[in-house]
């Protein structure tokens, strides 16, 4: 088995190992929930052992007690400084879910579908407005706001927590109304998006990926651009020019592909120089 799917599966199973929760429609209530995982994993998922960093950040920003979360911001800064978007490629449970969805052979010519470039900026707007501004500023009478990203947008909450909990509780099913319908429809759209486009949610909507992208060029863990050749990238990037860029999830597939395809042909700069020379000669 390749190392990346193995790590991704272990992270998904390890962060959702409270199996009793799935059977009884309950959630884990132990002390591990005080710790946030680096990836997107809803803390109301019946199996979740840890907390979601985005949910925790919004919960504290929206509460009356603190106006800023040193704890969650510190964790996010630390994760970002060490890993950057390596977290997306290896450590995010929702990232793996999207990759599995993309394996469903429902549509032909998936590779031909391109995302317009300006769509990639939507996740930054979501980060600024739904994760930070609305929880901080949209507060009610008692100084309490709401986690706007969780409430209106997050498909991880609907898929990982909403569906299993509603399936196991008649009371929750009765309470579900227009908001649940909206979130369910949005989640269905995200699922279809991910079947058609590789990691659609990561590329367009995920505010956590947007946050980690700011660290991608400087984090301790990076991919050596010299080891990257060719044009193979499922995220739609040009690996030679864009590895470690904001959109690169450090999956390392371009590097593995280059190893197989260009073995023994020198560094990426040399391969590029040779290719350019060949083009000039054949012109």
């Amino acid at each position, binding site marked *: 088995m390749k190392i990346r799917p193995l790590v991704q599966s272990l992270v998904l199973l390890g962060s959702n190992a409270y199996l009793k929760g799935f059977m009884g429609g309950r959630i884990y209530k132990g002390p591990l929930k*005080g710790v946030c995982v680096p990836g997107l994993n809803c803390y109301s998922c019946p199996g979740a052992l840890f907390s979601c960093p985005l949910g925790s950040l919004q919960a504290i920003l929206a509460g009356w007690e603190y106006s800023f979360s040193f704890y969650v911001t*510190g964790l996010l800064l630390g994760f970002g400084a060490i890993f950057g978007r390596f977290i997306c490629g290896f450590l995010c449970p929702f990232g793996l879910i999207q990759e599995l969805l993309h394996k469903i052979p429902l549509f032909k010519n998936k590779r031909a579908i391109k995302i317009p470039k300006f769509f990639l900026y939507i996740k930054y707007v979501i980060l600024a407005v739904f994760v930070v501004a609305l929880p901080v500023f949209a507060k009610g009478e008692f100084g309490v706001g709401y986690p706007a990203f969780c409430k209106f947008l997050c498909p991880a909450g609907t898929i990982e927590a909403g569906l299993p909990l509603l399936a196991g509780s008649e009371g929750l099913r009765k309470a579900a*109304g227009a908001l649940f319908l909206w979130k369910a429809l949005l989640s269905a759209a995200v699922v279809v998006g991910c079947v058609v486009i590789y990691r659609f949610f990561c590329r367009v909507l995920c505010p956590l990926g947007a946050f980690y992208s700011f660290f991608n060029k400087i984090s301790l863990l990076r991919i050596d651009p010299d080891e990257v050749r060719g044009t193979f990238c499922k995220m739609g990037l040009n690996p030679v020019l864009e590895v470690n860029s904001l959109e690169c999830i450090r999956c390392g597939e371009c590097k593995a592909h280059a190893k197989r395809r260009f073995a023994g042909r020198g560094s990426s700069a040399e391969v590029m120089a040779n290719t350019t020379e060949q083009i000039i000669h054949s012109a």
Partner: protein
Amino acid sequence: MTRGKYLKCLPLVILAVAGLFIAIGVTRGEVEAVLEKAVNICLECIGIG
């Protein structure tokens, strides 16, 4: 400091700030606040709150 050295130091500086933030957060009782939110079913997350 050259740009290369600056870029090498930057993640370490961020890590130090992160450590400081985490320590401040823990002493202010933020872990308990996270725990309190996370051990109760979040109605917003599941779409009914």
